């Protein structure tokens, strides 16, 4: 089998869902790329840490970014960024699953995008808002909390 014919890669998610993906799209993931290089017999590549729902979303990102030609054109860059913003309109759980997937699959662009999205969610929020958003337990005693606030008020009021 010559390399020109082998354009499709088969991925299997943790919940046994099968995805047939173009090899260039799959290679956006450095992890999968190395898997293919190590063993190009054409077997199914398991992706044990990522479920079907998340893997579909990852593939969507990779497809778009592979299909979009790299260009210095301002409008093209803006259009891609706008697509990324729409793409990121997802629930919190999917967002976090996506970060973990991007990290495991080693897809730099997706990891950057997801981490930046989380950072943007945190910016400008008060401690209470951050706790509510991420369901974080406040383990300071009221006195400790009061002391910390007073100490740092001059820096972030």
């Amino acid at each position, binding site marked *: 089998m010559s390399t020109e014919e082998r354009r499709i890669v088969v991925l299997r998610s943790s919940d046994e869902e099968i995805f047939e993906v173009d090899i260039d799209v799959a290679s956006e993931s450095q992890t999968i790329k190395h898997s293919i290089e190590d063993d190009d017999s054409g077997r199914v590549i398991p992706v044990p840490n990522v479920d079907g729902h998340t893997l579909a979303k990852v593939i969507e990102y990779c497809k778009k970014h592979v299909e979009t030609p790299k260009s210095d054109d301002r409008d093209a860059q803006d259009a891609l960024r706008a697509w990324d913003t729409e793409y990121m309109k997802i629930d*919190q759980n999917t967002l*976090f699953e996506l970060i973990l997937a991007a990290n495991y699959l080693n897809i730099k662009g997706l*990891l950057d995008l997801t981490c930046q999205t*989380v950072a943007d969610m945190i910016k400008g929020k008060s401690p209470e808002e*951050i706790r509510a958003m*991420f369901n*974080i337990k*406040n383990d300071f005693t009221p006195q400790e909390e009061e002391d*910390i606030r007073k100490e740092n008020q001059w*820096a972030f009021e």
Partner: protein
Amino acid sequence: MKRSCLNEGVLGLLNKDIVIDVLSRLPVKTLIRLSCVSKGLRRLVSDPDFILVYMKRMEPISGLFFQERFRLCDDDIERHSYVQFGVQGAKVHQMLLDFLPEKVVLLATSNGLLCCRSCMPSPIPSIYICNPVNKDWIRVNWDAPNKKDSIAFAFDPASPRDMKTSLYFELVQVHHHVGRCETDDAYFSFHIYSSPSRAWVKSTEICRCEYKLCKNRATFAGGCLYWMTESDQVLMFDVKNELSCLISLPLPATEDNVPEKCIGESSGKLHCVTISQDGVVVWVLEEHYESRWVLTWSITLETLEEENNRYLYNLAERVEKQSIDVFFPWMKPLAFEDGLLVLLVSLDVYLYHIHDKKLEKLCSLAELGRHSMMGPTVLLHSLSLVPVSQP
């Protein structure tokens, strides 16, 4: 891959590297807020792995430290204040350095860290390096304590630092030797302290100059330290090569035009701000040994007043008259750094953004102390989370 390091709700799903990536994208003020959210997050914000990533950033200036100084006598004044930029309401905060073991005199700031010395008299006069955000501090042995000397402080957070070793910084103490008789020339000597060696070394370099330093504060720009002297000159000391020279200021005083001046660093170069009847002029030093300054920005008093008539009134007329009363100029620059100019106009302190041409009223001098009119120490400061003592 460690799945969860924090017991922090949803964030607990992420491993440490990812959380650090997210945190590294946040401004310091947000990070400080985060450290108030939970104990786990508080720990993470001061985690050595995070600090390593964080140290490579440059934070914008967000406030200034202010300390009164007597102009004519040598006594130290303990009181100091911090003025916050860009906030509504209460901007002035008092005595933020109370966590230090004794009362201090502010000397310099560098990339978020503050250098100060014991108020004299003190049982063991020392120099302190501290970070007011995390209240971390260290004491530096001061071999030759002398409150008349100027101490400069240079800290570069981007310089390679192994987290296991302590902070890397340099101090330079400048002493003005006055000739004992008429034939002896007066000169400046330099003592250098570098933190790895923990020792003060006297430089063989000296700089002949009759005049002493007028504002004891040094400016660090492009590897060199600069101080204003009581004449129209700036003392320069190249720390690495241990070379010094005197640089003439761009606008010498004439009989009827005595400009108010200050120096500061912006874009890695020394700048000088002069305020006179000609307006506010910013110069950049292009060549040390030729004292070559290039005018880089200016605004006339009339235009400044027009654009800010809410605060400024009759500016040109009043500045013209200020040559008569040298002790109480109507308008003078207090500090300059990174395109931010701290101005004193009448009895109020303002912040002027050179590039945006925005004037912000900070506070009145009264809020900063009775003696704030005389040469106060004004240090522009950026927030930082860098630890000072060994982790």
